[in-house]
Each structure stands twice: as C-alpha cells, then as structure tokens.
C-alpha cells in the first residue's frame, strides 16, 4: 500500500509540474522570474546577446535565459510585445524605423536614434538604449592598397575614376528603390564603369583577390578586417543609419532597478572595427558567440571601473 501511495505522489507531482508549465529542473526556460534575452541567428546578434546576459549575471542576481535564432527584426519585436522576450540584444535604427515603426527612413543617424527612442517609449513602453558604438550598414569597400595608392577616404573620392571601376554588389541592391543603385547615382552624381550582381557573401573574397575594385559590403562583417579591406565613408549619408542598440521592456527595467545602469555600461564600448574583429572570431575562427562574448568581457573586466 505504501508503494502505491508513493507512486501516486510522484505521479501527482510530475503532472503538476507539466501542467503548471513552470521550468523543469535543469532546464529553465523563459519563465516569469527570469530575464529572457532574444537574439537573431547572426553571429553579431548572438555575441551581443551573450554579452548582455553575462553583464546581467555579473552584476545582479537575476537569472537570464537566451532565446536564440529569432528570424528577423519583426519577429524580435513581436516576441517583445508578447512578453516572450524581455530584452533584444541587437536592434538597428534603420531597420526598426521602417519595420516596427513603419516610418520613412531618416538619413541623419542622431535624428534616427532620437526618433526610435521616443517612439518606442511612447508606443511600445520599451526603452531603446544608446548605441553600442557600431553600425551595421551597407558601405562601399575597397582594398587597403587601392585606398592608400589613390588616397581614398570617402565615397566621393571614387568619382574621378569611377568609370574605370568594377563594382560588385548584392543581387537585390541594384534594382532596389530608394537606397538602391538608382538612388545612389542621383545622390552622388556618378556611375561605376561596370556593375556585377553577386551573393553578398562573395563580395569580400571578390574584392580581396582583385576580381572587383569596389564592393558593397556590410560594415561589421569580420572579413573586412581579415581580408584587409577598407570601408569608405558615406560622406553624403546616402545609406540610412543602422546604429545598433539593445531594447528592453520597461516593466523589466522597473522590476530590476540595477538593470538599466548595468546595460548602459555597454553603450559606446564597441566600435565598428571591434565588431568586425569579434564577428571574425565567430565566423572565421569557429568560436561560439558565447565564448567570444565572454573573452571580450573578461578582457575588459566587465567594464567595472566605468560608469
């Protein structure tokens, strides 16, 4: 009889765990008392997400769970609105202006940042933090040798010999309205000699081995550094800004008073060049994003001495 009772107790306990849906031992999910950090599938997003997690774990007693591989910025936004995710680690001003807010692109980075901060606070009750210090946007990129030889610093510098140059770009960009090639020609007033549409992943290699003279690359891609390429400054602010920040729900910030200060420590700490390096650690050297994040934070002592 005793055995039977014990069996029933175990049964009841297990069922109640299952039904109540609270986290299972050893397997905490995004439950009520944990802070859930959402990231996208990119290395960049996961590196930053892990940094956010480790900063929170280092400074507070709160438990943090990662929710990785959210499909896009819109999915991240939806997950934040549903409450499945409390913080999203990488949000880009340009993307969310058009996506979550449905507004027209704004060319001035500071203006764009101001708008998303204000609108997210007002419309979604979420806080948009200051940028980490890097922006992941499109940029015209050349080899270092070419840049040194011709003294290239900005996109306008290309104008004088653009008709002789081969440009390698993302398939979609050539035909895109607004910030596509047509818009570029209008804004800068010159065309390249020849354009070659290709997969975005191939442009870095193409520039490095001289198949292309200029390519349109993502500014934080690790291969820019690895292949010794140089990003030219978009001096006419043709591309919308994609400054990167984290976004947190206000109720989480209220529930954990130290949180805001801790997360602000990351603001302005990672330059675009630094992000290239970190991305290359993950993509080129096969380190997991969590390990890249940990090494970076330990190297900087979790920014303990800074406000």
């Amino acid at each position: 009889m005793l055995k039977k009772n014990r069996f029933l107790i175990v049964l009841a306990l297990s069922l109640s765990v299952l039904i109540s849906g609270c986290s299972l031992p050893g397997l905490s999910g995004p439950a009520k008392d944990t802070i859930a950090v959402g990231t996208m599938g990119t290395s960049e997003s996961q590196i930053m997400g892990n940094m956010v997690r480790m900063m929170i774990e280092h400074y507070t007693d709160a438990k943090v769970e990662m929710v990785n591989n959210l499909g896009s910025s819109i999915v991240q936004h939806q997950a934040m609105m549903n409450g499945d995710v409390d913080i999203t680690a990488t949000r880009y001003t340009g993307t969310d202006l058009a996506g979550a807010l449905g507004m027209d692109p704004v060319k001035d980075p500071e203006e764009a940042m101001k708008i998303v901060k204000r609108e997210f606070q007002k419309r979604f009750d979420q806080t948009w933090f200051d940028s980490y210090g890097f922006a992941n946007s499109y940029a015209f990129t050349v080899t270092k040798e070419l840049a040194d030889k011709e003294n290239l610093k900005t996109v306008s510098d290309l104008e004088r010999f653009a008709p002789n140059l081969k440009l390698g770009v993302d398939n979609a960009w050539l035909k895109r309205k607004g910030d596509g090639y047509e818009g570029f020609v209008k804004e800068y007033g010159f065309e390249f000699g020849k354009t070659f549409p290709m997969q975005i992943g191939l442009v870095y290699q193409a520039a490095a081995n001289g198949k292309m003279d200029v390519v349109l690359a993502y500014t934080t891609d690790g291969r820019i550094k690895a292949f010794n390429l140089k990003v030219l400054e978009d001096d006419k602010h043709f591309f919308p800004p994609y400054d990167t920040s984290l976004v947190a729900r206000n109720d989480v910030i209220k529930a954990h008073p130290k949180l805001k200060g801790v997360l602000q420590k990351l603001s302005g700490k990672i330059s675009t060049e630094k992000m290239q390096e970190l991305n290359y650690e993950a993509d080129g050297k096969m380190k997991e994003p969590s390990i890249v994040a940990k090494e970076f934070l330990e190297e900087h002592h979790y920014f303990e001495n800074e406000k």
Partner: protein
Amino acid sequence: MDTIKDILFYYTQNGSYVWEQFYRHFLMSAYGVLFAAIVAIPLGILIARYHKLSAWVISLANIIQTIPALAMLAVLMLVMGLGTDTVVFSLFLYSLLPIIKNTYTGIRNVDHALLESGKAMGMTKFQVLRMVEIPLAMSVIMAGLRTALVITIGIATIGTFIGAGGLGDIILRGTNVTDGTAIILAGAIPTALMAVIADFVMGWLERKLSPNKKRKGALKKNIEEQAA
C-alpha cells in the same frame, strides 16, 4: 581531412559550450519521454482492459504522430510561447504513440492461462496487474520507451527555431556562417551519437527486463540445484 581537423578544433575551442547544449538537449528529450510515460503507460493498461477504447486512443495518437514536427512546434508556440517548455510538450506528444501502443500490446499478449492462475490463487485485480501483467509486459513497454527516446532526440534538434537551445543551435549556426560545414557536423555528430547511445542503453535495459531471460536463468538455477 580538413573538415575533421576543423571539427576537432571547434571542440577544443568550444568544449564547455557543446557539453552544455548536449546536456540541455538530452534533458529536453528525457523529460518529454518521462512525462509521456507517466501518461501513456496507465493509458495503455486502461485500453488493454477496456479494449473497445483502444481503436480510438491509438488512432488519436496516430494522428498526433503524423503532424510534421516543425508545424507542431509552430502551432504550440502560438499557444505556449517560446522556450523549452514548448519543446518538451511537443516531445511529450510525439512519445505518446510508441509508449501507448507497446504497453497495450505488451499487456494484451500476456498468456491468459497465467492470468487465470493468478486469479485462482486469489490475487486481486491490482495484484494480477502488478505481479503478473506488468512484469511480463515490461520488456515490450521498455521497447516503446526506447523508440520514443530515439525519436525525441531527433526532433529536439529543431527546438532551436523557437529559442530552446540544444544541439540544434550549433547546427543552425553552422548554416549561418560562411563556411559552416565543420560547425554543422560538430552539432550533428553528437546528436546522432546521443541517439545511438540512448538506443543502446535502452536496448540493454530491455533485455535485462525480458521475462524470457529471467525464466531461463531461473530454470538453469533449478537444474543446477537438482544436479547438486
């Protein structure tokens, strides 16, 4: 050859992370099967008793089994949100069929003469169940758990799409980086290995619990005793 070198390099760099995900992956699968066992074994016994119910219950479990895993996760995600709980619940659903079916078959296949003799000895219904039916059906039930566990280890991989982590995270990351062959394999090999090991261990348990073996052992002992 380079790929193998890359995989080993990956493990030396990310060993602790891989282990963490391995453990997490296993726990998700094991919880799914455990909860399914708690529900499905009594249910299997029940439908073996009242076997008019069996057609209904088994075909319902069959229907669950036919839903594609990704669709199941997506639908459950809408109701339960992101994270491990959703994955564990869908693994629970997938484990139901093999366990119910095997429990049902195991109990139904117990020799009627044995049940009668149990009854004749004055056992209550519960005693017959506990002392005759379940021990004799045990190895078949274990086979059901074994199938369920191997299935769930495979399905848990796609839990990564709803942010549950596990070895699927490593595989998915491999598909996102430029040259991810080694990373994909670094996630896929442990998954396969886990399924093989789980199958092996459960198979061993199944043989251990098999009544035939016990009986043979007992017979041998008997003969030895008589000879002595």
